[in-house]
């Protein structure tokens, strides 16, 4: 081990850590606002990466039919809810729009010369296709049981995760894929070469984190979400709809997941089931932050990335064990530090 190797490993760890940090933040966000431990977060990473790869290969993306199926189910659920509470005339156009949207995306995917499009447009198409699934998942699986216990929500999360992995296999096939890098250049910095894709990852992650911070600190919507996270009942009394808060959070989570997927697809081969491991490492980061603190979660996730990189050098066979064992001292420290609170409300 010399300085050069340490630098390369550090760069590698920070690149991966940046992705884990994004995922840690969105897991934290979803948990605080809706009390859902969002295990399918990783699927958005895989879907984003694989959709991008499918678009670059010029293959129409089968995932759009899943989007349509979700939209139809959502429209049906909305119509039933309307029938139960008659008297509101408006809203029909909204339901119609929900169904028309996936059809428009499908038409775009099947008509456009996908492989020849500029990369930014390909990425935009990927986002347009994958991100709406976040709110859809919330509407279909979590909204009906929003007041259930954390355990029930967790069980539903696991079920949704397993179902999405299966659907991912169906849509993308068993083999992995990778995409073209955003740019080919590499930067010589002292003794090491920095891959420009790594810079993209770190830069985009940093920008996203700053934008999220601004959104939560400055904007009305962000403040509303924070209020819902802090005290659901109180927020509701203040006129903040928990349904809106849920949908918005899931939208953000899906957006972050898909962006992460698009970012790492050129660096590594993604499989239909590789999202889980990535999000699990984000989860470890979120745990380090105690599932409450955003900056601690982000720092924890970067730490996970660094530990992963260095342990892959020293003891590659035990890498995963080292990374996941990290959680034990953290939990111990947390349990020693915090006072035991008697069962509160509920």
């Amino acid at each position, binding site marked *: 081990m010399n300085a050069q*190797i340490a630098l*390369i*490993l550090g760069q*590698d760890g920070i*690149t*991966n850590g940046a*992705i884990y940090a994004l995922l840690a933040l969105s897991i934290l966000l979803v948990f605080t606002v809706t009390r859902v431990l969002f295990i399918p977060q990783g699927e958005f990473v895989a879907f984003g990466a694989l959709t991008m790869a499918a678009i670059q290969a010029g293959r129409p993306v089968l995932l759009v039919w899943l989007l349509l199926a979700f939209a139809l189910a959502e429209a049906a659920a909305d119509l039933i809810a309307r029938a139960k509470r008659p008297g509101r005339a408006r809203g029909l156009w909204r339901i119609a729009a929900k169904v028309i949207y996936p059809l428009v995306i499908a038409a775009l995917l099947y008509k456009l010369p996908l492989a020849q499009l500029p990369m930014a447009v390909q990425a935009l198409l990927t986002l347009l296709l994958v991100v709406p699934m976040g709110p859809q998942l919330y509407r279909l699986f979590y909204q009906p049981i929003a007041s259930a216990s954390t355990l029930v929500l967790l069980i539903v999360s696991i079920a949704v995760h397993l179902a999405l992995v*299966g659907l991912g*296999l169906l849509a993308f*096939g*068993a*083999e*992995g*894929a*990778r995409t073209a890098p955003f740019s080919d250049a590499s930067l010589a910095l002292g003794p090491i070469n920095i*891959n420009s894709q790594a810079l993209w990852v770190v830069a985009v992650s940093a920008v996203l984190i700053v934008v999220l911070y601004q959104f939560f600190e400055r904007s009305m919507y962000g403040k509303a979400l924070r209020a819902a996270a802090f005290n659901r009942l109180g927020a509701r009394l203040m006129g903040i709809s928990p349904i809106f808060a849920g949908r918005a959070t899931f939208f953000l989570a899906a957006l972050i997941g898909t962006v992460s997927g698009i970012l*790492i697809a050129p*660096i*590594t*081969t993604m*499989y239909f*089931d*590789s999202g889980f*491991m*990535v999000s699990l490492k984000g989860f470890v980061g979120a745990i380090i932050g105690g599932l409450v603190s955003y900056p601690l979660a982000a720092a924890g996730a970067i730490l996970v990335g660094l530990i992963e*990189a*260095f*342990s*892959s*050098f*020293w003891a*590659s*066979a035990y*890498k*995963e064990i080292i990374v996941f064992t990290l959680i034990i001292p953290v939990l111990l420290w947390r349990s020693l530090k915090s006072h035991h609170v008697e069962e509160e409300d509920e």
Partner: protein
Amino acid sequence: MLSKKLPLAAAAAVAALFALPALAQVKVGVVTSSTGPTALVGIPQKNTVPLLPKKIGDLTVEYISLDDASDSTNSVTAFKKLISEQNVDALIGPSGSPNAMGVIQFAAEAGVPMLAPVGTAAVVLPMNEQKKWVFKTTQNDDIIARALVDHMVKTGIKTVGFIGLNDPYGENWSKVFTALATEKGIKVTANERYLRFDSSVTGQALKILAAKPDAVLVAAPGAASVLPQTTLFDQGYKGKFYQTHGAALPDFLKLGGKKVEGTVLAASLMLVLPEMPDSNPSKKVATDYIAAYEKLNGSKPATFGANVYDAGLLLEKAVPLAEKAGKPGTKEFRSALRDALEQTKELVGTQGVYNMSAADHSGFDDRGRELITVKDGNWTLVK
């Protein structure tokens, strides 16, 4: 209504008339992983089932195909179901190596011969009372490894870095390859592990680079074999790359692109079929299989499908011998079927020639593999 029913009844009567003397039927259970992480292997295997022989001598063969979703527990359930409910005479499958390891004892307890189209040699080695019932329709790792080591010796390679998956596949390759290489005076200077879904193998690659080996061997099945090689390539490694037969897939070329040019691997002749001389006995069998598969499924089969096809060929040869010992569905038949499989001699399969013996239940020799390299984005035979 009568007009509709009449031909049906007539057909049934005729069928019954002809079927009566040949009612005896062999039942074969097939378990593949057509869903889940091993689906890449399992799908071509499942698609091959309709191509297996439907009639052997006077006997009709019925195939009962189940999916284990790549889950070892499901493989066991499927095997138990086939054995106790369907009373099968032989089993083909499962697709995954760990799955196969888990079901051996159940096949052996019931005394049903099992034809495993899996990679790991551990299903038939070391031979014992249970593995006696297992036959393996793929090349053992050591046959492939020997071809690679021979090539290394010939091209003057003295040191090799090894990087393999952190699972039985990588572990077994590390063991087999290290032993063979040491025997020939080649030193394994780095031995690293990684996971299929790792997003980066930079650490391992640096360790290998630091050891400065003449060549690197990557041991991983499927697309996972690409990442270590591209990472090393990007970090400026200039030595020779070797891959195992697990990399012998179109995806390896697609994902690797220019970075895998010149890689050497030993694998089934199916990859370079047009280049094979007609004198090679397997060429015709393999060509026929590929043509039939393409006609049925509209796509080219991966080599994994051929391993199930070979199981059919083995049964075709063994069932007539077993029939002499007893009727299908009886214990005598199954045990005789096992004995007959063990006596298979010079049977030409899609990927080589089988010569089974009590000690060797895989039966391939050097005709079971070819040295192949990547040239201009295609597989070519090493001349």
